[in-house]
């Protein structure tokens, strides 16, 4: 067994002493054959790792499929359009996740009502600034950066980026910043932003803005204002009709 081979074994065992490490590193620099051998063994290590991970991944995938199958058979979803299923799922998840979203410091009974409203809430999807995955964030493009942060649920970041875009004359930014503020639990700011949106010339999200404003009031605990907004929304459109009805029933 050559001294080189001993060194390489110790290296992989993580057993090199300081002086041995020095020799090892010198050899890497000065001896191309030595380096080639180390690299070859590192690649072997990597190849083992890749192979084993593939096997494990297959094993876990099988378990995952089992789980999803049994989930499907216990809860047969009605055939609705895909997005509405997703919305319902998101609502359910929100119900489950309520304890995460609502600050745990307050006692449960106090928050029960606003928790209920939170179940209706999910952030509005980004439909104005499609983000092409695969593109690395270009910091010059503030707006894209803002929506990437928004989509990745990094709402603090999104908020500050949206703030920088204030003078852009793009109404929808008011709307999305409003959602962002809800996420940050700054409901008053959220409502102000939705109001500004509704006063602006933005057309795309008028109903949505009303809907989120209502939720924001409700979660905050202002059921009078919340109800008011819901009634307005019911009058003006059919947006979220079912949910609006359910909420109004709850409030009565």
């Amino acid at each position, binding site marked *: *067994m050559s001294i080189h*081979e001993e060194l390489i074994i110790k290296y992989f065992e993580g057993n090199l002493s300081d002086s041995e490490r020095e020799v090892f590193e010198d050899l890497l620099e000065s001896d191309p054959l030595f380096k080639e051998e180390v690299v070859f063994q590192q690649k072997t*290590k*990597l*190849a*083992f*790792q890749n192979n*084993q991970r593939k096997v494990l991944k297959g094993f876990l995938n099988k378990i995952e499929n089992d789980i999803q199958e049994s989930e499907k058979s216990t809860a047969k979803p009605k055939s609705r359009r895909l997005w509405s299923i997703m919305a319902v799922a998101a609502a359910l998840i929100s119900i489950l996740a309520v304890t995460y979203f609502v600050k745990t410091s307050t006692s449960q009974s106090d928050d029960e009502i606003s928790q209920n409203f939170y179940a209706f809430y999910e952030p509005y999807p980004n439909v104005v600034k499609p983000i092409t995955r695969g593109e*690395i964030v270009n910091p010059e493009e503030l707006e894209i950066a803002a929506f990437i942060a928004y989509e*990745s649920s990094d709402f603090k970041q999104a908020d500050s980026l949206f703030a920088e875009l204030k003078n852009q004359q793009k109404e929808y930014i008011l709307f999305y910043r409003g959602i962002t503020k809800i996420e940050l639990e700054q409901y008053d700011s959220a409502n102000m932003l939705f109001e500004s949106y509704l006063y602006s010339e933005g057309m795309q999200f008028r109903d949505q803005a009303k809907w989120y404003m209502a939720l924001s009031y409700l979660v905050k605990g202002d059921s009078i204002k919340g109800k008011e907004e819901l009634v307005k929304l019911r009058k003006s459109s059919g947006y979220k009709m079912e949910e609006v009805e359910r909420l109004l029933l709850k409030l009565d």
Partner: protein
Amino acid sequence: MDNNLLDRLSLGDNTALEEIYRKYRAPFIQFALKYHTDKNQICDIYQDVIIALYEKSMKQKLQLSSGSLKTYLFSMGKFMLFTRLKKNSNTDFIDIENDQDLFEGLVESFEFIDEKDPQVILLENALESLGKKCQELLRLFYYEEKKIAEIQVLLAYNHTDVVKSQKSRCLKSLRESIELKLKNR
């Protein structure tokens, strides 16, 4: 109870792997949905987290002194999620070894290797055609990161020198087999 599971895991018990996977799946997804909305991708990351856990436990590098298994899985998941979002890579494994907190020592050994290296791909295939004995020995050394002395005990060799020379023979035939493949292209 988790300790028992982890013990079994470190011995390579796949039923323990499955139990852990099922036990923390729902809480993990719920947790990850706070940061990301794509459930498929979250499941994918959860699998990678479980695989990383498995590897660490196999290498006896798992120290859960600072928190429970759940905390560990969640923080690793969060880390992977953000790394993945940054990299925007959907299918490939992210480099788990980048996690400096959880993995020290061998990090630098991967620095100058490109994961898409054609030689690695050749090696992946060549390993499968290696004799069973060689596969086992090399897997213990490179994947499970067992020391030569441990392998001597595990595979009942007379002396560590026998392990070492066996290992270099195996590496040699591995080398030959990929050189042959290269030639036949």
